[in-house]
């Protein structure tokens, strides 16, 4: 059995059939996981100024860039092992660098509050064994974490949920569109307007407090009724909800207080986003957006977005992430105007504009290590085939060595 790194469910019940040092077939992995394990068609090659070179030269050039930068950002980290992340944080400390990860414009707000214990949470195994009411909120797990419903939440028989999903569990979807997950939650789909989550939460809090909510009163009272009856509930908070209430995120805490039988689960996409957030939190008390000086300083201006807008970084090293693909177009010119080091297994948009590229191994396929599942459980990653590519952990070792 091996582990899939297709998403933060880190399914560790995968069979990989290897032939001639290639994964020929996968079993139990979903469509996305299978594609990830079989690998991309365009592997990255080492390059400097978009000219192919050898990996040693690429690493040397990277050392030049990180040493000479006045204020460098180390960014990415969500597709790296915990081991590589720890070394990346060490590197940031030594360089007095700014460090940020994709959670900065993803689920960071949520994971931060979970690690601060401001929101009650539980394990996915608890959900499988006990949960009777499941709320997918701004989360289309069927497309983003495809085995979430089958492995843990709705369909499996668990210790106190032995009779099957039709009798034992209720799945609810709250979303702006009828997603594939909403389709599964037949009869319990609450469609809300774009950016309407805050108002929905306020009305739900009213309904849970025994008041008559102004919002779609009938549906709201019905939903409050289901939630109140829950023995063990879970709210799966997707990026849809996080983005929608980002200006007033603590409203989610207010809702959670009204639902003592519920736990909050962050629906994380990248396989080891939580790993990075936990590591940096342990080190500094913050999950992202940190600048190391004498001590760790946390500020929104150290987010990748604001750092680029305010032009307060003069170089960036990107590990296992493609910000050129995932950030808004207006700031891409700012990203492309500073030296960029791109460490990735595959050619990406970012690698196409990078000053230096360093190819690395595909974690979970060509190199092992550990990662943290969306619920905080540590999962071992497997090395399934051997390749000549350096794991990103080893690249971090090389950089640490070179600067000390």
């Amino acid at each position, binding site marked *: 059995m091996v582990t899939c790194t297709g998403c933060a469910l880190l399914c560790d019940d*995968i069979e990989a059939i290897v032939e001639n040092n290639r994964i020929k077939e996968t*079993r139990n992995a*979903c*469509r996305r996981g299978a*594609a990830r394990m079989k690998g991309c068609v365009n592997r990255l090659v080492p390059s400097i100024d978009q000219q192919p070179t050898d990996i040693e030269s690429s690493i040397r050039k990277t050392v030049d860039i990180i040493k000479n930068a006045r204020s460098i950002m180390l960014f990415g980290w969500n597709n790296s092992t915990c081991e590589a992340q720890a070394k990346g944080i060490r590197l940031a400390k030594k360089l007095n660098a700014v460090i940020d990860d994709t959670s900065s414009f993803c689920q960071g707000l949520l994971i931060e509050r979970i690690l601060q214990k401001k929101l009650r949470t539980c394990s996915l195994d608890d959900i499988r064994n006990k949960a009777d009411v499941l709320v997918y909120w701004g989360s289309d797990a069927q497309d983003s974490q*495809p085995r979430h419903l*089958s*492995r843990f939440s709705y369909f499996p*028989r668990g210790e106190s949920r032995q009779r099957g999903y039709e009798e034992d569990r209720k799945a609810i979807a709250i979303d702006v569109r009828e997603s594939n997950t909403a389709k599964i939650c037949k009869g319990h789909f609450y469609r809300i307007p774009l950016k309407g989550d805050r108002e929905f939460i306020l009305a739900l809090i009213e309904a849970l407090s025994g008041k008559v909510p102004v919002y779609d009163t009938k549906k709201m009272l019905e939903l409050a009724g289901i939630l109140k009856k829950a023995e063990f509930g879970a709210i799966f908070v997707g990026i849809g909800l996080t983005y929608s209430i980002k200006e007033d995120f603590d409203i989610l805490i207010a809702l959670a207080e009204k639902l003592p039988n519920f736990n909050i689960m962050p629906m994380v996409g990248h396989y080891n986003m939580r790993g990075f957030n936990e590591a940096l939190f342990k080190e500094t008390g913050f999950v992202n957006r940190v600048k190391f000086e004498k001590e760790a300083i946390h500020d929104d201006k150290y987010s990748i977005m604001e750092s680029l807008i305010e032009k307060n970084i003069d170089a960036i090293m990107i590990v296992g992430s493609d910000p050129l693909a995932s950030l808004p177009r207006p700031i891409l010119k700012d990203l492309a105007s500073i030296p960029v080091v791109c460490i990735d297994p595959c050619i990406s948009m970012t690698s196409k504009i990078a000053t230096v590229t360093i190819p690395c191994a595909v974690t979970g396929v060509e190199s092992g290590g550990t990662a943290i599942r969306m619920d905080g459980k540590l999962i071992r990653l497997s090395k399934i085939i051997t390749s000549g590519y350096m794991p990103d952990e080893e690249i971090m070792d090389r950089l640490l060595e070179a600067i000390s």
Partner: protein
Amino acid sequence: MVTVMELYQLLPRTNCKKCGESTCMAFAVALLGRKKNVAACTPLLEVNFKPQKEKLESLLLPSAGAEETGLIVHPELCTGCGNCVVACPVDVANDPHGAGMGCAPTNDKVIFKVVDGKVIASNIKECRRFGKSRVLCYACIDPCPTGAIEFV
């Protein structure tokens, strides 16, 4: 999924019995159950029934790849989420500590398995829609988010 009525409405509806069934409705049922071929209805072979005949054949086409129970998986629609693997009552009964708990199947007695990110069906004789005491079970269809499984 095509219904008996849809098939019936494309037939001559003369109850001529040339196909060996007593009524056109009975023939439609036989078509749906794969017990008779469209060609058994000789009036349909006449020129003025050509569009109806073609429509009938296209409606019944997916069955070419169907299992004996009429089960078809459309691999191009399947996301490999495994909802059917876990929800199938046969899989739960035959592998309670594997598939039944949401984990990878631990034996070969299950009907559904995900291979290369898409579900495949085997052990089809175990399906509740098969055999003498068959029931019209929808346990694998209902949990499918993309309509990748159907019975014809």
